Structures are given as structure tokens and as C-alpha cells.
């Protein structure tokens, strides 16, 4: 089981990074959400894997519980990353609409609006 999870994390990370290295905004956004899945699973798995042991207290009998803390952290992480994704999507969209160009790279005239001359 661990092997599956680990390999899944690895593969999602790899794919995510590959997409992040593209030159257009949309694939980069997809890459970011992929790598977000990867890190969420990673963080979740740091509590070690357990089957049928949800961290919901059982009043009646002694049962094993999985580690609840990473789950809480991942929950926070998921929500935060949702916000982040929404923002970058929106910024990218606005950038595209304002410049009709969804390249993510800044070109020279983007960064500098005038050349200095020495005297």
C-alpha cells in the first residue's frame, strides 16, 4: 500500500513540475494543482497509513485510531490551496484578457519601459 501511495505522490509531483515548466499560464495552473494534490497526500501520509481506523472516537469499545493531526493539517492545506488556485486563475485570466497573451514569461519590454543612456 505504502508503495502505491509513495509512487502516486512521486508521479503527481513529477507531472506537476513538468507542467509548471510550461510557457503558458493554464498548464502552469494545472501543474500547481497537481503538485498540490501530491503535497496533500504527502502530508496526509506523514501520519502513517491505517485502514478502517478513522479518528472518530468510539464511546463503546477500544479501537485503533489513525493519526488525526495530519488530517487536520491537510484539511487546512486543501482549503488554503483552493484559495490560492482561485487567485492565480483569476490573475492569469485578467492578465490574458488585458494583454491577449497567455505567455507566462515576461519579455524585455514588459519589465523595462525605457533605456538609460549614459552621459
Amino acid at each position, binding site marked *: 500500500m505504502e508503495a502505491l501511495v509513495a509512487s502516486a505522490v512521486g508521479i503527481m509531483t513529477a507531472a506537476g513540475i513538468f507542467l509548471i515548466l510550461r510557457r503558458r499560464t493554464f498548464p502552469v495552473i494545472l501543474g500547481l494543482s497537481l503538485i498540490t494534490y501530491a*503535497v496533500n497526500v504527502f502530508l496526509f501520509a506523514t*501520519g502513517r497509513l491505517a485502514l478502517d481506523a478513522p479518528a472518530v472516537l468510539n464511546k463503546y469499545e477500544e479501537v485503533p485510531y489513525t493519526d488525526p*493531526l495530519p488530517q487536520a493539517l491537510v484539511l*487546512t492545506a486543501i482549503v488554503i490551496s483552493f484559495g490560492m488556485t482561485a487567485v492565480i486563475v483569476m490573475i492569469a485570466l485578467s492578465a490574458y484578457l488585458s*494583454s491577449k497573451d497567455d505567455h*507566462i514569461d515576461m519579455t524585455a519590454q*514588459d519589465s523595462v*519601459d525605457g533605456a538609460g543612456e*549614459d552621459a
Partner: protein
Amino acid sequence: MNHWIVAPIVLPAILAPFIIMVLRYHLDLQRIFSVAGVVALLGIALTITAQAAGGDILVYELGDWPAPFGIVLVLDRLSAMMVLLTALLALPIVLYAIASGWDDRGKHFHALFHFQLMGVCGAFLTGDAFNLFVFFEVLLIASYGLMTHGGGSVRLKAGVQYVAYNLLGSTLFLFALGTLYAVTGTLNMADLAVRVAEIPPEDTALLRVGAVLLLLVFCIKAAVLPLHFWLPASYANAPLPVAALFAIMTKVGAYSILRVDTLVFGPDVAVTQGLLGDWLQPAALLTLAVGAIGILGSQHIARMTAFCAIASMGTLLIAISLFTETATTAALYYIFHSTLATALMFLVADLVMGRRGGAIAPTAPMAQSGLVSALFFVGAIAMAGMPPLSGFIGKLLVLDAARDALDANAIWAVILIGSFVTIVGLARAGTLIFWKSHDAQHNPAPEVDDDEEAPTLPAPEPNPGLAFTAIFGMVMGLVMLTLFAGPALNYAGKTAEQLFTPENYISAVLGGEE
């Protein structure tokens, strides 16, 4: 029950929603409340600084859960000082943003501004690693909003890059926290320190990975080479008052490095030896070099100022990377100076850009060029570390602290040559922007005097008086920092001493039970 510690976080957290809900359509009221909020924050900051100055470390257990199980805020000299710096920085900037009308060029400026302050203060105060992550995210997302404030295609494009790069950083942060938790089973920094110190040998490899990832995250924030690439484009294209506020964000990275390296992965912790010490110093030297070269090589004043920020971070990180008490004292003094100086430079750059565009090239003369050039001169002096402003003292302190270091020669050479290049670059920019402009008109007209305005050219700001007052305030801050360098260094020295005796911190947080 001393609730002052949480106040710097709660105040903006309440003020910002209030501004959104009630004052959404009243800019004037927003401005009043925003300024009032910053003033209140300043008052709080002064209070907690006074509380921390005594030297005892105050702990605030949120939700009344004992550390390490709940989240704690920890107030020691360092965090108090940083919160104070944040408030001191925020006041002139918010005034300037109002005076220059920047806050009116988009929605929700003041709300985002206070959320940003909340994130920064939280990052300085929290004693919990994951909570630090949360506050990083708060200040980051607020910065995304502020950075793209007002829109514009280039700014938005820069915004995309800024967000994308920092999202990578946040992801890295989670990887790091996950690894650290998976090894040590805790998130509280003090507890982490205790457990790292007695980590069994078979777990060191994984622990070191976690540690180095965490430090990398902080280095991204602190714009250490080669992780600084996010900075120039985003600062140069952000609204410059916002860029001025961002002067504190790089310091959050520096603070975290300082905190974690003195508390958790300290110099005397065997397990994490050589994770930072080995490469931070060369990286910091490179940072300074690249910053200085960038100052000389920039063709745009905003971009040049961004490189000023990088260069001063380089100097700061050199001091930090020495990891001695004297060097840390120097670093703490320099943090104050570099934050104010960078912010000042950005505000002056905004004055220039509002008047004549940002190109470092001769153009027609500008309104109040005498006053603006004088301010630029002051800012440049501060940036280049020339006397009589605090930059010079800071530089002397760093040089003095580095004299016993192994490669003192390299450090001295880089710092001194770096400031030489900075001087040349800033002199070039200044002469081209302010003096060359007189070629534009053929008769050498009289230069306006420092205290009178050119009647022909109106100032672009709606309220130039307030704008200049705000900037003068920042200058005064630098002057005070110079005049009262003695007391300031005294405090910094005590702070460094506190940092280098982490036992007190740990026992204060964990109640000395471990």
C-alpha cells in the same frame, strides 16, 4: 491574563472585515479607520515591546491548550522588535498610499493592507511551525492582492509569476513540515528544538532533509540567491507603496532563518550541522553582489530599487550567516535600517515615476525636482551605506562583526566593493534623472530651491503635502536610528543574547517540563 500578545493579530483581523462590510463604499471613512488602525497597532507594538524589553519571554496559549499540543504565541525581544518595526513601517506607507491616491486605484486596498499586517505580525509572534505556515499564506495572499492592486497588463503578468513562484514555495513549506512532523511528531518550535536535540541517530537523515527544506522556504522569502528570482519583476511592477510595504516581507524570511537557526537547528545542535552554515554565507555574498550589479545595470528606477532591496538583504544575510552574538546584534540593527531605507527608496521612486516615468534617462524636469532629488539623495545615501545615516553604522557593524570570521577578507571585499558599485550606480541614476533633465531646456533655468515648488509643474499627487510628510517621517526614522544607535544597539545586543540562550525560550514555552 495578558491579551496584548494576540492583539497585533486580532486587531487587523477585525478591522479589515469591518472595512469590507461597513465602509465598502466610503473611501474617506476607510482611510480614517485604516490610519487609526495602524496607529493603534503602533501603540500595541510599543506596549508589547515594553513588556518584552524586560527580558522575560511571554507565552500565550491559544485555546488554553498547553504547548506543544495547542498553538502558542511567544513574545520575546526579537518578535516584539519585529512587530514594532512592522507598525513603524506601515504608518508612513499607509499615509503615502492615501496621499498619492494609490489606495483609490483599485478595490479593497485598506482591507488587504491590514490583512497583510496581520499575516506579518502573526508570523513574527507564533511559536508553532504549522501556524507559521498559515501566517505565511495570509501575508502572501494579501501580498498577491496588493501586488496586483489596480491591474494593468504588465503588473498582472508579473503577478502571475510572483504567485506561481511563491506557490512553489508554499508547497515546499508543506513538504518540509510534513517531513519534520513525520520524524519528530511535533509542530511546536520549542518542542521541535528539544526533540531535534535528542534525535536518535537512525532518524537523522530524514530529519536533515526536513530541516533543509524548511530553511530553503525561508531563503526563498529572504530572496537569497539563487532563490531571489521572484523579487525584481514583482517589486518593480507592484504599486511602489506596496513594494515599500514588501520591504518587511523579505525580513520575515530573515527573521524565520534567525529564529529557527538559533532555536531549533542551533549552532551547537550536532544533527543539523552544515545545513545552512555551509552555503548561506557564499549565497549571501552572491546576493549582495548581484544586487549591487543590478543597481548599476538597471534602466528603470523601480527595478533599480528592487535590486537595492536585494543588495541590502545580502548584507543582512551575511551578518546572519555569521551566527555569532555580535554579528546577530549587527543583523538586528541592520534589519531596522534596511527595512526603512528600502521602503524610503521605493516611495521616492514612486514620486519620480509619478512625475516623469521611471526610465533612468534624461527627460523634462519634474515638479518639486529640488525636493524630490534631495529625498533621492538621502535615500541613496542610506541605501549605499554612506554616512551620516544608519546604513554606514550598519555596514561598520557588519564589517566589525565579520573580522574574526574564517573568510573575513572575502566578506569585507564583497561588502566594500558592493557599496562602491552601489554608489556608482546610484550616482549615475541620480545624475541622469535629476541633473541631466536640465539639458532638456536650453537655458539653464534656476534650480528650484529645496523648499519651493516649480509653479509651472503641478504635483501629480492629490495631496503632495501629506505624501512628503510621510516620506519625511521615514527619513526621520533613519535619522533617529542613527542618533540613538547606542540605545538601539543596546536593545539589539540584549536580543541577540536572548536568542543565543534558547533554553529560556524552550522552558518558557514548555513550562520547563521537558
